[in-house]
């Protein structure tokens, strides 16, 4: 059981409250013909709430906040998705939500003992390699999707959590330096650098430039952790210089990008509202139409637009629930990412994981939201947990699982190591 039974109980109650308030809103403002779908939806949401609250104490975590937030956002997303264009339980989304919760548990169990998972690093490289092969062979030419009947899987989504695990590092690992020529080099960093380059190349080749910034974001967070431990002191000047070089590289990349990228970078959506700017212009009109308080669940018209439930989902939520609610939804995700600020992780490895997850989530949300609102080029990435899509949902769930692990770590060495420590103690005496 939790160490704080009172706060556990309170959290349960308030999560259920929040969902109930939403359901009442659906009941009164929503557009539906019969009551059945509303009741089904309410039952499904509340059942999932209670079931999860019953299950999680068995995991004996020291912290449950992230779990509560995850459940809060996931069931919010079930309600959102079920209301697009009329209230009915979106069974597909409900199943992916359960899958995400399961993935979260798996992520927690895998990552809670960092010393163990750190030794499994080679398997992550192998995993990423396998996914590479899958993308290169199984997906259609230059696409990121594998179609299996009615289900499509996006393997590149699964690279994200693995990549975070590869990027995560402990201080000890950073001290295992080797001398090559006159540089002190950590082999692992070289491997990581190579891997990042490969991922970039792959994304470029697949023309999936949407998830490229996500990987770069994760890598930047990993990189920032690593540069703290070279022998020589890094001055601020070096930092600024590196920043300028990066900026120049980004600008050059924009300038020499292939034509189809250029086309996406310079789109005046209002002069082409039925062509390239179709989705974005509709999205913006939808947000304007919704205002602060929205049109009411199921009353929007954005649900007739292609990709209303993933690429421009922010606008769809804005239209039906209002900008205020959509902002709070984003806020809940941000609180989830910011929990490590309140309750700091106890090991560097978990800290790097938390930062990696935070980078992945914020970059994805930024790409989706700002992209659909025409602040940056429009790319087809998803908002974690809000957009529909099983692959993204499971990958995001797994990442949050890693965050949970960072909150409730276990510090245990495996048995043979323990003996070694004892023998060393004898040595020291």
């Amino acid at each position, binding site marked *: 059981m939790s*160490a*704080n039974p009172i*706060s*556990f109980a*309170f*959290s349960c109650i*308030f999560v259920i*409250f*929040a969902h*109930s*308030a*939403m359901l*009442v*809103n659906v009941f*009164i*403002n929503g557009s539906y013909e019969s009551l059945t779908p509303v009741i089904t939806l309410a039952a499904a949401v509340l059942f999932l709430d209670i079931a999860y609250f019953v299950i999680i104490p068995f995991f004996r975590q*020291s*912290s*449950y*906040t992230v779990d*509560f937030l995850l459940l*809060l956002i996931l069931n919010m997303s079930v309600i959102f998705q079920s209301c697009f264009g009329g209230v009915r339980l979106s069974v597909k989304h409900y199943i992916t939500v359960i899958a995400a919760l399961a993935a979260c548990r798996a992520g927690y169990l895998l990552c809670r003992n960092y*010393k163990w998972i750190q030794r499994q690093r080679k398997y992550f490289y192998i995993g990423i390699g396998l996914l590479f092969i899958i993308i290169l062979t199984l997906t259609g030419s230059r696409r990121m999707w594998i179609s299996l009947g009615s289900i499509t899987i996006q393997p590149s989504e699964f690279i994200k959590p693995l990549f975070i695990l590869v990027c995560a590092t*402990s*201080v*000890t690992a950073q*001290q295992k330096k080797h001398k090559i020529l006159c540089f002190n080099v950590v082999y692992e960093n070289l491997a990581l650098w190579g891997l990042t380059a490969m991922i970039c190349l792959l994304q470029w080749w697949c023309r999936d430039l949407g998830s490229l910034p996500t990987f770069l974001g994760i890598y930047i967070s990993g990189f920032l952790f690593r540069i*703290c*431990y070279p*022998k020589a*002191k890094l001055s601020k000047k070096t930092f600024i210089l590196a920043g300028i070089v990066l900026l120049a590289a980004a600008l050059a990349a924009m300038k020499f990008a292939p034509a189809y990228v250029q086309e996406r970078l310079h789109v005046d959506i209002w002069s082409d509202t039925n062509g390239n700017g179709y989705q974005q212009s509709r999205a913006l009109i939808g947000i304007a139409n919704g205002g602060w*308080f929205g*049109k*009411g669940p199921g009353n929007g018209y954005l649900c007739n637009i292609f990709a209303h439930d993933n690429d421009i989902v922010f606008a769809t939520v804005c239209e039906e*629930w*209002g900008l*205020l*609610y959509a902002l*709070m939804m984003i806020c*809940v995700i941000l*609180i989830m990412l910011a*929990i490590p600020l*309140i*309750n700091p*992780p*106890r*090991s*560097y490895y978990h800290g790097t994981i938390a930062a990696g997850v935070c980078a992945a989530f914020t970059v994805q949300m930024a790409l989706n939201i700002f992209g659909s609102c025409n602040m940056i080029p429009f790319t087809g990435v998803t908002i974690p947990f809000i957009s529909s899509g099983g692959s993204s949902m499971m990958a995001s769930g797994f990442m949050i699982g890693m965050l949970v692990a960072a*909150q*409730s770590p276990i*510090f*245990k*060495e495996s048995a043979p*190591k*323990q003996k070694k*420590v004892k023998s*060393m*103690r004898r*040595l*020291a005496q």
Partner: protein
Amino acid sequence: MNTLNLILCAVAAATLDICALVLILTAYSERRSCKKRWDKLTGTMELAEQSMTYPLVCDEILIGRHASADIRLPDISVSRYHAMLTVSNGVWVITDIGSKSGVFVNGNLIKQAVLRENDTINIGVRRLIFRRRSDSYVR
């Protein structure tokens, strides 16, 4: 949309707000319990110098002259990255990570050693005492 519906929207939003707030409060209360758990796991130890004390609150602690070291000893006799303190199963271990002047525990030059309460660690000219945190008795 009439006023009632508007109020309802506001109520739903407010409930979500309160829920988020409660969860943040939960996070704070869990932070306390996590700290307790950590203290129990690691034995509330600290490193003490004459005037300074360094509580040991995470599982890898880097001692050195470098700015990025967790315990920074700005003395020329200390290497940039001198030694590392790690904990597992409630036992603190000090490891020399390639220092120039070596690490001495209770006067013995060691490569790696398990630390016990009131051990003296000499790093360069600096002398640190590994001891139980005094405030832990108070609590």
